[in-house]
């Protein structure tokens, strides 16, 4: 059973949830109030929904051997654009205004994702560098949109996206669930997932067997940007405000962490969407736990550092070899080089 790829992330999640019982005995209690579900577990899902979405997009990018650092900026830009449109509209409360605002944010995300994707696939820039550009510039653009201010809005339909309830469950959880389901369907019930893994495993060989590697690579960056934009809408909707400076700050690191915890290799070539969702929930549970125990929330970073390094060590074949005391004569070329995710530059 420990061999199953989802065993370790699931075990960590369960252990962390159980650890909470020591501090809050009614941690697992879920009750309904005014037709809405309340409870710590619901909170974790509710606040974790944006991270699940961003990590979902990130998983697809990492599956192709890339990485997307720009998601945090995309989160900020999407939220800023939607809030700016709604705040300037004559009727901020109408459904049509909100729909246009959402469409606007998603359309801009499509463009941003396409720029990232084309830089990586056509111009052949290393993914970490290509997306670094948008990560740096995107924050500036988001602040440009909001003019350095925090835009606050009052719009009930917009509030639904991140803060509202639907069928007693937070709407954001349903939305995130639907997008995860759709991605699972697209990647595992069609050949798309296999093709992505093939591109991540060896882009050159994939192209030689007739896979449109360039097009797929561009596609995953677009998907990542769209997921980030939806997450950005959720975050800004939950607080009914857009903050170009702080919205989605460091979410790219949390997302990468979630993907790694979920067992997806940073070298590309295989991915696990279920693992990513578990990973995102582990991170959200960690944050929630730190808050409920009463440790200063800033020190969460130390725990995250411990989690990252533990997970990476467990994934490292060298570490496992050392830990199990199986003396292996360090094979120079057998293990993938640390930078092999970047080796696809020359394609």
């Amino acid at each position, binding site marked *: 059973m420990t061999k199953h790829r989802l065993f370790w992330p699931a075990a960590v999640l369960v252990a962390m949830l159980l650890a909470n019982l020591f501090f809050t005995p009614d941690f697992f209690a879920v009750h309904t109030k005014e037709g809405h579900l309340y409870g710590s577990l619901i909170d974790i899902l509710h606040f974790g929904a944006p991270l699940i979405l961003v990590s979902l997009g990130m998983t697809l990018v990492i599956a192709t051997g890339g990485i997307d650092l720009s998601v945090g900026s995309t989160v900020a830009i999407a939220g800023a654009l939607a809030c700016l449109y709604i705040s300037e509209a004559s009727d901020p409360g109408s459904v049509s205004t909100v729909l246009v605002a959402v469409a606007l944010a998603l359309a801009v995300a499509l463009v941003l994702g396409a720029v990232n994707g084309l830089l990586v696939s056509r111009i052949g820039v290393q993914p970490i560098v290509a997306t670094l550009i948008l990560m*740096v510039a995107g*924050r*500036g653009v988001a*602040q440009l949109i909001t003019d350095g201010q925090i835009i606050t809005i009052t719009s009930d339909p917009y509030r639904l996206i991140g803060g509202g309830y639907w069928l007693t469950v937070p709407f954001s959880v349903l939305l995130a669930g639907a997008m995860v389901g759709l991605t699972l369907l697209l990647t595992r019930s069609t050949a798309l997932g296999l093709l992505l893994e093939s591109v991540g495993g060896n882009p050159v060989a994939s192209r030689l067997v007739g896979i449109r590697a360039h097009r797929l690579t561009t596609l995953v960056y677009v998907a990542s940007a769209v997921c980030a934009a939806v997450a950005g809408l959720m975050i800004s909707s939950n607080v009914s405000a857009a903050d170009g400076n702080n919205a989605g700050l460091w979410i790219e690191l949390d997302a990468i962490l979630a993907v790694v915890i979920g067992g997806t290799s940073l070298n590309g070539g295989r991915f696990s969407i279920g693992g990513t969702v578990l990973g995102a929930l582990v991170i959200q549970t960690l944050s929630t736990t730190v808050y409920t125990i009463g440790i200063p929330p800033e*020190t969460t*970073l*130390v725990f995250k550092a411990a989690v990252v390094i533990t997970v*990476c060590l467990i*994934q490292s074949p060298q570490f496992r070899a050392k830990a199990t005391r199986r003396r292996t004569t360090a094979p120079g070329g057998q293990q993938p080089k640390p*930078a092999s995710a970047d080796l696809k530059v020359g394609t």
Partner: protein
Amino acid sequence: MNTTLAAKLRGQVPLLVTSVLLVAMFSVGSVQYEGFFSGQVLLNLLIDNAFLLVVAVGMTFVILTGGIDLSVGAVVALSTMVSAWLVEKHHWPILVVIPLVLAIGTGLGWAMGWVVHTFEIQPFIVTLAGMFLARGLCYTISVESVSITDPSYTAMAQTRIPLPGGTFLSPSAVIAVLVAAAAFLVLHHTRFGRNVYALGGSEQSALLMGLPVARTRITVYAISGFCSALGGVLLTFYMLSGYGLHAVGLELDAIAAVVIGGTLLTGGSGYLVGTVLGVAVLGLIQTVISFQGTLSSWWTRIVIGALLFLFIVLQRLITARRPT
């Protein structure tokens, strides 16, 4: 087929572009704004960006080996925090605090390098963990900003070293220049420097040539850790405070400076002079924006992003070996 010479000349192109850009920006600024064309404006570039220069120098070593160090900003913050805490709360003398801080930074860098090398984990993720750890440690010391009133620190902050022509430099700027000069010598005139380039060019070849790959790789991360800690010390002089939110995003500025300076992110090619020019370009962007007065600070980020884009595409055009 004189490929080595051709490759060498190609490697110079980004450096040339950066120099031209720098001269152009300074000329445009001098024509456009009153009081821009002065020696002190140039020296202020150095004074205001001394810590960035030191950090970028360390980053150059890591990037030349094909790695990356995301922890630099956090190590800078940790250094300011430890300095401020020891000096203000425990009244340790400055001569004990600074070596201790430098040792912490070097040790942290060494540890990250060791993990990167021994377990073959991507530098990106290891230094990410280092970044979380260092920032988190800042907050375990204090969540608030700790300001420094110690006379030896304020003296370092306020000393002005007069230069001919009525201009002046700060001690931090002098330290930064010395660090850059020392790094230049190490990188271009020692065996270790050659090993760094060899490792960045091809790890396999370096290994087969019998070069000390393990030692080189671990040392570059230790150097980056040392430079970050020193940058933190300089930032402490500049800000006279320790704070966990100091130098947020500094790693991006340092990487941007190295890239704009023409160093290839795949490793193996680049010059330390380029990094110095890259830091100057970043500093000049901020100077121009502050002279302009009507532009908001976020334009800095947008311009840096645009420049990054330009230089990365340029790098690709130069290094494009075969058409896709």
